[in-house]
């Protein structure tokens, strides 16, 4: 130990005062050096945080769901980092994939997810080769979130020339009440398209969304604007989650085994949540169905650009009773007709993937994701038509 420290640590204040010159004591009490250094280190920490967070901190073939779950603002960070990555690498020809948990790859790791295989297909030499496919899917993403994401991409200058939207049958099931059709990004929609937000607000509020207005709203926005300028706060979820993830061997979320190697309880198969997924009630395919409304808005947004839609299928064995229900079959036909009328490229996948490649009623195994990626890519390039 430093001799001076050792000595002074043992002395009392009166003796310290006796020994130390008054000017030194005064400097210690009145000095600003400590605070000035604190300020300097604080500023340096901001640069360090900005430097530390890159696209691969928040994204690996798909966004980091643990981070997103802890703070839905992470979607904005992913988009920001994507914009930086695109700019830094001079990318011009890429596609954006937006879908729900099927497209994200629930029950599988990022290395075995749809995003990874689609990226592999798209960047391999061949027809329609792309420089990259960015997968902005996440569990529970709805059509309203997808529309909002497109607006967020526009705002950051990310091209939306090639967009793939992943839906499921359940996307069209109406909430009465239930899952709101802008599930995650209500606040972002409010900023990006206030008119649309105002229109959809009653539906959102009826399904658990809290619209902060007035003074509280102004306060909320002001705090957000300030904190966006302070990287250690902006990345308050990302940095701890990234540190936590360092020790993890795999980022798999759920059980990757095929459904027939697992047990599904009677309780789960008869739960309202499960049954609602396959609701056979006739779909209303007009603008008053919020999924249709947002899909129409997406189609409008993509005028003159490429838009491809895939509707993932459900497990024909595990959910046989539900997917063979005449109501379900009729609704699938309605979805087909709607997408055909919308004039976009699309593919519906019910019964096109072997039930053995499902991990549950809708999510896919590694091989299932590989096959789905192949089907999508073939349809995208026109080979599978």
């Amino acid at each position, binding site marked *: 130990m430093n001799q001076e420290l050792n000595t002074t640590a043992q002395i009392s*204040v009166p003796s310290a005062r006796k020994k130390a010159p008054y000017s030194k004591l005064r400097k210690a*009490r009145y*000095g600003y*050096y400590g605070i000035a250094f*604190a300020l300097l280190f604080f500023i340096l920490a901001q640069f360090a945080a900005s430097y530390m967070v890159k696209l691969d901190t928040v994204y690996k073939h798909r966004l980091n769901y643990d981070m997103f779950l802890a703070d839905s603002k992470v979607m904005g960070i992913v988009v920001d980092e994507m914009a930086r990555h695109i700019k830094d690498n001079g990318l011009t020809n890429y596609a954006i994939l937006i879908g729900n948990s099927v497209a994200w790859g629930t029950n599988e790791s990022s290395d075995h997810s749809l995003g990874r295989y689609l990226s592999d297909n798209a960047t391999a030499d061949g027809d329609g080769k792309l420089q990259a496919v960015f997968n902005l899917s996440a569990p529970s993403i709805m059509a309203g979130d997808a529309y909002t994401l497109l607006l967020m991409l526009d705002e950051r200058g990310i091209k939306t020339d090639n967009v793939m939207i992943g839906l499921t049958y359940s996307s069209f099931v109406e909430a009465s009440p239930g899952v709101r059709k802008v599930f995650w990004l209500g606040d972002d929609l409010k900023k990006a398209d206030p008119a649309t937000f105002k229109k959809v607000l009653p539906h959102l509020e009826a399904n658990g969304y809290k619209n902060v207005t007035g003074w509280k709203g102004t306060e909320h926005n002001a*705090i957000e604007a300030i*904190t966006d300028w302070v990287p*250690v706060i902006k990345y308050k979820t990302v940095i*701890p989650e990234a540190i936590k993830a360092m020790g993890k061997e795999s980022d798999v979320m759920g059980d990757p085994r095929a459904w027939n190697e697992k047990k599904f309880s009677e309780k789960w198969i008869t739960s309202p949540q499960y049954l609602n997924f396959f609701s056979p009630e006739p779909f209303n395919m007009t603008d008053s169905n919020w999924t249709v409304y947002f899909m129409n808005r997406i189609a409008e947004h993509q005028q003159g650009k490429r838009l491809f839609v895939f509707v993932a299928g459900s497990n024909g064995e595990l959910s046989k009773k539900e997917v063979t229900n005449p109501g379900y079959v009729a609704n699938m036909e309605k979805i087909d007709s709607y997408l055909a009328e919308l004039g976009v490229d699309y593919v519906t996948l019910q019964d096109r993937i072997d039930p053995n490649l499902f991990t549950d009623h809708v999510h896919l195994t590694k091989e299932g994701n590989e096959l789905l990626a192949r089907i999508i890519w073939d349809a995208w390039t026109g080979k599978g038509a």
Partner: protein
Amino acid sequence: MLFNSPTFLIFLAAVFALYYAFPRGRMIILALANAAFYAYAGVGYFLLFFAIVASVYFISKGLQGPKGKLALGLGLAVVLANLLFFKYSMFLLENIESMLGMTFSLQGTAFADRSIALPIGISFYSFQLIAYLVDVHRGKLKPSRSLLEFWVFISLFAHSAAGPILRGNDFIPQLRKISSILFRTPRVKLGLAFILLGLFKKVVIVEQIAPYVNDYFSKAQTLSGVESWIASYLFAFQIYFDFSAYSEMAVGIGFLLGLRLDLNFKTPYLSANPAEFWRRWHITLSQWIRDYIFIPLGGSRVANWRIYANLIAAMTISGIWHGAAWTFIIWGLYHGLLSAGHRLYDKGIKRLGWKDALNNRIYKVFSIFVFFHLTVVGWVFFRANSWSDAVYMLKKMTMMDGIQFTKQHLLLLAVAAGLYLLHILEYIVVSRFKRWSLAWQFNVPSIVRGAVYAIIAIVLLFLLMKGESSSFIYFQF
């Protein structure tokens, strides 16, 4: 506006800057800041608060005149009526209904849901107003010179929500010299240290243990004996760290503005008896109870049985002050009984000639251990959601049903033990604060100090911005 919210920190920075930029306008700046702070919680309640303060101010003009008693009665009536209505009316109604065995219909009234939202800090400002009225009436305090001065005194944002309860004699003279307060670096540093200490207690300690406490007390009737003790231990530390965090931040804000606010806590769980505990726990409330309830009731200058009765009555009133529920009343009564019991015990020890034993170190440690556990038992009444929950938990805490530990129990007991060690550490640091603070500034290179400050600031910012700021427990009183 919560002290542990980003909005408050921005508000404080703005007030601080304006305060030192315009020394002559300080009273106006503080008056407006107080109004903004209170109006943030609700404009209606701000208007009510201001109306009460203004009424008391004008009534107090007559306190030293020929109709002083009438003015005092009127002033007390205004303050107590406001407090009774907002805090106790529904409780009284429910008890009257219970006694009569009937229910009055409130349908069609503003109270159809049988609840009245409590204005923030109502108990604190009511006690402060009562002290002011009584002191001016007794001639111990000169009335405030202006409504502006009175408003700043009563409503100062640093303490209006949860104390400390300020006395006119201490605080009004400070306000009269406010424009001559200079910016002094050591004092501002001390203020920042207190604010950081409070923030640390709130976001690092309280926020982490609160979920366990809430979970345990929400399922009180399913707890085992061990779990009941864990819940009570953790709540003891939750309420201490929560309330002392607020109070220390209040003191820190005072230092930033060059104003002295009294400390409300002095490591109370190191008390060996009730008298010591109340000199270390919520000190300004204890002093208020002593000066305006216990002494007027006769204090210690009456017959022995009256002293015991006065102690019990004063502590029961303290319990009622905390909240309109029987659990709070029982908690106050329990502490009154502890105080009376200790007085009796103390007299007995002295009569037996064992006075020296009281100064024995082992006896002292044993007393602290016993009294800490008696305090923990009291917290069960304070925190339990109902009387039956409290009784159930206390029955379980006798451990008559056997003792069984799980890994989580051991972990939480270790957390409680760790918190107690932290409490001891706090005592050591506070008692040597001046010396250590000077040694820290004098001996540690500024670059190292700067790095430590930056790390603390970043960690606190991380935790502060992590989620919704939770309220301080004493805001509800």
